[in-house]
């Protein structure tokens, strides 16, 4: 025991020496920036270099910290409650609405105007997530749109066209299954990730089943349209068995992996599968195609939920420097460098860089097209904290899995969902 005690004492002493003391609080001329860590490390590197060079020119010290998509709201929740938001924050699609409603974001209309001078006008459909009461509270940075991934080789084999409607997907999946090519070809996961809630919005909206009106007031999901939408996607799980229940437990990465393993014909996803296949010289790359997400009886009403935006929280002490830094990162030269290093994943929300020949590939056009058509969370109204909670509370995907897993009737599932949505909108009125 004696020697052990001695060793422990040495360890304690060492530890005390090694633990660094806390740093003094940030002085003026020092900026903190939180950004999303993406799946494209080279693009992240370009962004960091750009930002650091901007800071150097402005004579400020910049500390960049990263968060992952899954941890974003954990980190921001603590910071909101403790009033320790950074000087510059990269926020997701619903972040600007939530923080602006709290009165915690600076008006950045001037930065948006300056960015528009450099990059052309802001896309009108990007406004919904960042513009409230006529003022901009965030500068759209980029979007990663969801598109329909499919396998043209399998479609040829079973003699089917590339699907354009939700019903097509269901029918073609049945064909593929019957031909014995794949057991569960329909890889639409109604789970608690973006690959679940984003297509869920596109689905209901394309059946005319939005839950608000243009002003963002609650109207409820119309029952007849909602039931139609529910029926077309739940059939795949219940009657046709072209989807496996396992898809309902998938994470954001599992559908990518299942697609690249050649096990599914369709899946909704950001363009990341293309990037993954290109970077590993995947044999399926030649048999991978993308398409704009399907339309329904009420048209093609795509959701655009993966949008990142620059904001200046009012917790920070240097809003002027923070705004200048965002302006510099969004300057034409810097932004195009970043975009061009993103392997066609990060799509601008300003007009000029979208016309860049960089996007002039078959896939690039579809990706840009999707961004141009995409609607913000809470469509046809603007993004509000209530609309954000409908997404974050998984109300839409729960409605679908209630039918699939719990065997509730579509009508009852819609009643339940409407009750939940009404409670949310009553509690979080639009300011």
């Amino acid at each position, binding site marked *: *025991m004696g020697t052990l005690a001695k060793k422990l004492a040495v360890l304690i002493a060492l530890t005390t020496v090694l*633990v660094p003391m806390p740093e003094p609080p940030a002085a003026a001329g020092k900026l903190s920036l939180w950004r999303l860590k993406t799946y494209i490390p080279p693009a992240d590197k370009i962004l960091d270099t750009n930002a650091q060079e901007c800071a150097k020119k402005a004579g400020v010290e910049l500390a960049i910290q990263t968060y992952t*998509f899954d941890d974003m709201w954990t980190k921001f929740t603590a910071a909101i409650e403790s009033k320790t938001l950074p000087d510059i924050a990269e926020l997701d699609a619903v972040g600007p609405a939530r923080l602006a409603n709290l009165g915690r974001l600076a008006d950045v209309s001037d930065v948006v105007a300056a960015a528009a001078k450099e990059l052309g006008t802001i896309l009108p459909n990007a406004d919904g997530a960042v513009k409230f009461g006529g003022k901009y509270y965030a500068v759209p940075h980029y979007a990663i749109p969801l598109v329909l991934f499919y396998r043209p080789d399998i479609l040829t084999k079973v003699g089917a066209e590339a699907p354009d409607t939700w019903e097509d997907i269901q029918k073609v999946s049945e064909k593929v299954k019957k031909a014995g090519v794949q057991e569960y070809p329909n890889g639409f996961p109604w789970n608690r990730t*973006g690959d679940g809630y984003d297509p869920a919005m596109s689905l209901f909206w394309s059946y005319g089943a939005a839950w608000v009106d243009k002003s963002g007031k609650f109207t409820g999901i119309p029952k007849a349209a909602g039931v139609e939408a529910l029926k077309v996607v739940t059939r795949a799980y219940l009657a046709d068995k072209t989807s496996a229940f396992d898809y309902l437990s998938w994470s954001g990465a599992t559908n990518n992996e299942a697609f690249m*393993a050649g096990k599914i014909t369709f899946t909704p996803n950001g363009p990341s599968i293309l990037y993954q296949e290109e970077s590993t010289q995947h044999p399926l790359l030649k048999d991978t195609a993308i398409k704009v997400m399907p339309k329904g009886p009420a048209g093609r009403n795509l959701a655009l939920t993966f949008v990142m935006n620059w904001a200046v929280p009012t917790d920070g002490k240097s809003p002027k420097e923070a705004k200048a830094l965002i302006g510099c990162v969004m300057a034409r030269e810097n932004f195009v460098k970043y975009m061009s290093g993103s392997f066609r994943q990060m799509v601008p929300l300003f007009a000029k860089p979208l016309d860049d020949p960089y996007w002039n590939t078959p896939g690039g056009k579809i990706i840009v097209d999707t961004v141009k058509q995409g609607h913000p969370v809470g469509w046809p109204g603007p993004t509000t904290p209530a609309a954000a909670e409908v997404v974050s509370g998984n109300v839409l995907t729960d409605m679908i899995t209630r039918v699939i897993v719990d065997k509730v009737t579509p009508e009852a599932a819609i009643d339940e969902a409407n009750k939940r949505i009404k409670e949310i909108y009553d509690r979080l009125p639009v300011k």
Partner: protein
Amino acid sequence: MRGATLARWAVLALILAIVFVPMYWIVATSFKTGRQILLSESVYVPRPFTVDNYVYLFEESRFALWIRNSAITAIASTLLSLAIGTAGAYSLTRLSFPGRRTFGAIVLITYLVPPGLMFIPLYRTFIGLGYTNSLGTLILAYPTFLVPFVTWLLMGFFRSIPRELEEAALVDGATRLQAMVRVVLPLAAPGLLAAGLFCFTLSWNEFLYALIFIADDSLKTLPVGLSEFVVSDFAFWGQLMAAAALASLPVIVVYIYLHKYMVQGLTAGAVKG
């Protein structure tokens, strides 16, 4: 007797097999290329075999730094918790004073609050103290869930040690404190080791507080660093598994080393018992 030995080894073999399969998967994956993983090529044995994932850890990520930060935090918070918890547990099991039973229950009830909800008020406490963004913050924060744990676990061990041994020492003229240090603690050494290991593992694994309380990139701990290998649509499997395999090694080495003391504690007990 023969049958008993056979049964013993059969049970061990079964448990070892259960432990082995996922372990093997982690290690095997760490030697695969991204392509092998995505294409489900050479599923069982990585062929060809690559060490690129390990090279990546040291050249492209700050793995060594994460290990250092985690080791400092875990060791310091474990020692702190063991010291506080041992004293508390001894007091609660061996000394009689008014209110000890209630206190024992209160200690455990504080352990009930899920860390998933404690982190905001705790964070605000540290902000109030002006002490955030340092490994010291974590070293102070981790005992909030370790101390109740150590106290209780050791209470269980202290109870299993016959009081007579301690009383004999008291009769021989030792003070209470001396009896505790010389008789009870050596006998409870396996328990201390078990408690210490558990504390170490909990701290080594802790994610939420490390994510929130630490802002500085150079102070990130291992679990926070590891989480960056899984980014929304993507899991960098090879690098993640390499990091997991490599990070587990030192802990096992420490355990095998400390194991000696566990046996030592036993012999001490056998002599006196």
